[in-house]
């Protein structure tokens, strides 16, 4: 949970309101996807194998070296994909998992409750364990340690709790998950108490928790309050951190937020890994850059790829996508949303008509302009973003069609009608001021100010406090006892191409917890909870899409929050780089498959 960048992807509520100075000017003249192809920058030049790629961080880069901790977009793009392999992964534009360490998709039996997975043999670890190969026991240990409080994983509880023997919450001692069986070194059997859709379709087996971790090596580092395995990590992907071969990663190879140097992993064999081309010889991440300088340097320099920011500053973006640098950009949906959270436990927001009035009065176009206009995304009409299963079932671009949700410019008259239905005779709110907590840095702070001004037209007075993004989350919006009424600068990104990861954490009543509460609206509707719990067990993809689409529709009808943007990811690179982006990772740059060009 951190707040250093605004890039979308994964479950990244934390990052969505952050400190990147994207600016407030409109880019209305530039449409979405106005640059090059959706998977790679256009280039007719020859592929150059080798060379060094440089990526500039402006917001701290990766969160951790530990695969068990990785959860955010930068973790996935900067270290997970280049350095580690999982049971399953995704091709560049793929929306379904494909085998990575596994030889094939799981063999499913017992009514969807047993998954048998065979592993490729002969996959070696990086030095100092170069003589050791990946076994099913390493995967089992990796998944078990994801339940350790000392590893601080972010999703094991959400996706693996129905594996037989899995603990319901983080534990201090390594759990023995009996539902993970290893009959031989290349076979892993997963047994669940009920069918679990995201396991059966392998989506949840493509997460970093299935990155192999050898127990005989890592156990000693996993003891104590915080695991230190990351500092001694061994790698299975095409790259490893420079100096990691000694068994301890040196500061010259990785220093938090400042530098990370990836070099080739001598144990990796291309023949076993069809997913990673690994063209570069070396990938260097340099941190603490000013975003304007980083963006400009990347576009005008050579061998460079954009770093940990959702978009360059508006002036550079505008110039870039309309001028000669257009071919260096890829603008594509990030598969995430932004929304205004309304706390349904605090009057008058416990009144559905008041919430509908707020939804009606919000000028979503104006909010989008605070982030840079249409280039930065599509106005949202519901929660599931375009391209995700369930999006069409929830109404597609037009949305479910509720009248309070149809006018992207806001409708004050309609909003006042809803206020009257809620008992406010004049159509204006007359009660006490509502505590509203927002980010204190642009563009999120600009969005918050716009929300404040729009709510004022309905008579809402706000106790409006702007604080750093980390504080928005850690002290206010994710802490129910803080009794925050409105959080205008939140958002959510997918974990994989399944809408459970978009809706369940944010709206299922079972996720309301005293701290780290992702259900910020505190929606606890028994009927919706039951629908979501049932949908989790559906294994047929088509039926899952229908089920989650219907849930999205009902959540929109309840106006528990106001979704207002489906974000775009803006990636770019130097002229001599053929940039690839990774759809699974919200279309962030794919450094493992990008390459230098010649001519």
């Amino acid at each position: 949970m951190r707040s250093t960048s605004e890039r979308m992807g994964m479950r990244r509520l934390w990052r969505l309101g952050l400190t990147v100075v994207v600016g407030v000017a409109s880019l209305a003249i530039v449409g979405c996807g106005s640059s090059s192809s959706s998977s790679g920058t256009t280039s007719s030049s020859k592929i150059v194998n080798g060379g060094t790629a440089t990526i500039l961080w402006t917001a701290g880069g990766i969160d951790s070296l530990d695969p068990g901790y990785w959860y955010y977009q930068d973790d996935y793009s900067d270290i997970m994909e280049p350095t580690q392999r999982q049971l399953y992964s995704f091709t560049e534009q793929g929306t379904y998992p494909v085998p990575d360490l596994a030889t094939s998709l799981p063999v499913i039996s017992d009514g969807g409750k047993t998954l048998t997975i065979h592993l490729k043999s002969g996959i070696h670890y990086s030095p100092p364990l170069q003589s050791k190969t990946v076994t099913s026991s390493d995967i089992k240990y990796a998944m078990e340690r994801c339940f350790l409080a000392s590893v601080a994983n972010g999703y094991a509880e959400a996706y693996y709790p129905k594996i037989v023997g899995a603990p319901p919450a983080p534990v201090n001692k390594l759990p023995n998950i009996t539902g993970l069986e290893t009959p031989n070194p290349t076979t892993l059997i997963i047994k669940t108490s009920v069918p679990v859709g995201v396991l059966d379709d392998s989506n949840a087996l493509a997460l970093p928790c299935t990155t192999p971790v050898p127990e005989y090596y890592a156990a000693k580092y996993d003891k104590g309050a915080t695991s230190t395995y990351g500092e001694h990590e061994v790698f299975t992907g095409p790259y490893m951190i420079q100096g990691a071969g000694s068994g301890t990663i040196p500061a010259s190879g990785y220093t938090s937020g400042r530098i990370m140097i990836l070099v080739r992993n001598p144990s990796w064999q291309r023949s076993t890994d069809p997913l990673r081309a690994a063209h570069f010889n070396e990938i260097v991440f340099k941190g603490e850059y000013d975003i304007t300088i980083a963006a400009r340097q990347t576009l005008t320099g050579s061998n460079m790829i954009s770093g940990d920011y959702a978009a360059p500053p508006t002036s550079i973006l505008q110039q870039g996508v309309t001028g000669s640098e257009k071919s260096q950009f890829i603008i594509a949906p990030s598969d995430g949303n932004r929304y205004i959270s309304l706390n349904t436990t605090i009057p008058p927001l416990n009144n559905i008509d008041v919430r509908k009035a707020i939804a009606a009065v919000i000028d979503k176009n104006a909010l989008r302009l605070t982030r840079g206009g249409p280039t930065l995304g599509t106005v949202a009409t519901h929660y599931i973003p375009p391209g995700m299963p369930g999006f069409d079932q929830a109404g597609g671009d037009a949305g479910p069609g509720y009248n309070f949700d149809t006018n992207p410019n806001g409708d004050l008259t309609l909003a006042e009608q809803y206020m009257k239905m809620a008992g406010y005779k004049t159509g204006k709110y007359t009660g006490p001021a509502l505590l509203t907590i927002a980010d204190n840095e642009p563009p999120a702070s600009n969005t918050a100010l716009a929300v404040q001004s729009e709510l004022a037209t309905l008579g809402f007075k706000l106790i409006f406090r702007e604080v750093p993004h980390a504080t928005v989350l850690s002290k206010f919006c994710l802490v129910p006892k803080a009794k925050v009424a409105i959080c205008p600068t939140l958002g959510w990104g997918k974990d994989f191409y399944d809408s459970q990861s978009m809706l369940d954490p944010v709206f299922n009543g079972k996720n309301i917890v005293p701290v780290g509460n992702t259900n910020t609206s505190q929606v606890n509707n028994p009927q919706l909870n039951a629908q979501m719990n049932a949908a989790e067990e559906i294994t047929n993809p088509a039926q899952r899409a229908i089920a989650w689409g219907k849930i999205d529709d009902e959540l929109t009808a309840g106006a528990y929050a106001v979704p207002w943007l489906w974000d775009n990811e803006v990636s770019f690179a130097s002229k001599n780089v053929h940039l690839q982006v990774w759809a699974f990772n919200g279309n962030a740059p794919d450094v493992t498959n990008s390459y230098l060009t010649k001519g």
Partner: protein
Amino acid sequence: MWVIVLLFGVSLITFVIFYLLPSSNPALLRAGHQPTAALIKAIDHEYGLDKPWYNQYLDYMKALVLHFNFGYSFEYQTPVRTMIFNRLPATISLALGAAVIWLVSGIIIGTISAVRPRSRFDRASMGLALVAISAPPYWLGLLTLFLFSTSVGKFPIFPGAGSYVPLTQNPVHWFTSLILPWLVLAASFAAIYARLLRGNLMEVMSEDYIRTARAKGVPERRVIVRHGIRSAITPLVSAAGVDIGVLLGGVILVETVFTIPGIGQLAYQSILQGDLPMIQGTVLLGAFFIVIMNLIVDIGYAFIDPRVRYT
């Protein structure tokens, strides 16, 4: 003694401010992705965060005084002292290098302007000084990078953002990488100091003892340097002490624009992350430098200003 009292006061105020105002819970930073109530409680207890604020403050001061321990950064998962000492050389390099430039240029320009008032040089230099004072360092930094840096500049002459290397690693590269940051940081200070010295020196040069010195046949150059500047420079020394002290505590904007891994960047990131121990450490460091530089200035007066020495 007052130095210790002052530092103690600064530490107390900083601690109370960040304890009482909205800030991140350090335990949450430590807890990672699964901040369960039980885990938060355990971390609070482990690090004494469940104690009353005054007990936490006393623990902090005890560790600081007895072990020179500034605490632990939950954001960087590193001792604060380590982070600060790792970054201090960059800030010192930047601040002292810039100070040399602004003092030398400020004194030269101010002196020439004072002895030749209303000349073309005086008008031009004072006009430029106004521009330099008005230009925000952040803007000026970006401007110089886009004009002169080898990475993004139109006239690529000097290394740009992110080129800083420690002095011990490569002295030549260290020097060249700091040229633009030094100039940007020194610009407004040099302008202020030049204007300040010009005003003071013009006033001093009309004093009786200057007329006496001239009447005694002392060469004009000696009159200006030994009698004029020596008296007029005292306010500059006072200002330099405070300015250098402040800059040693962190040069946030210039370090940010030029990606220099110094204390300013660290302080800025820590504030954004609500990393209280790191904020506390950087504030204390800043206060320490201001106090020390003022002490040096007080001592320096005795050598610079004859009136101080003889009273």
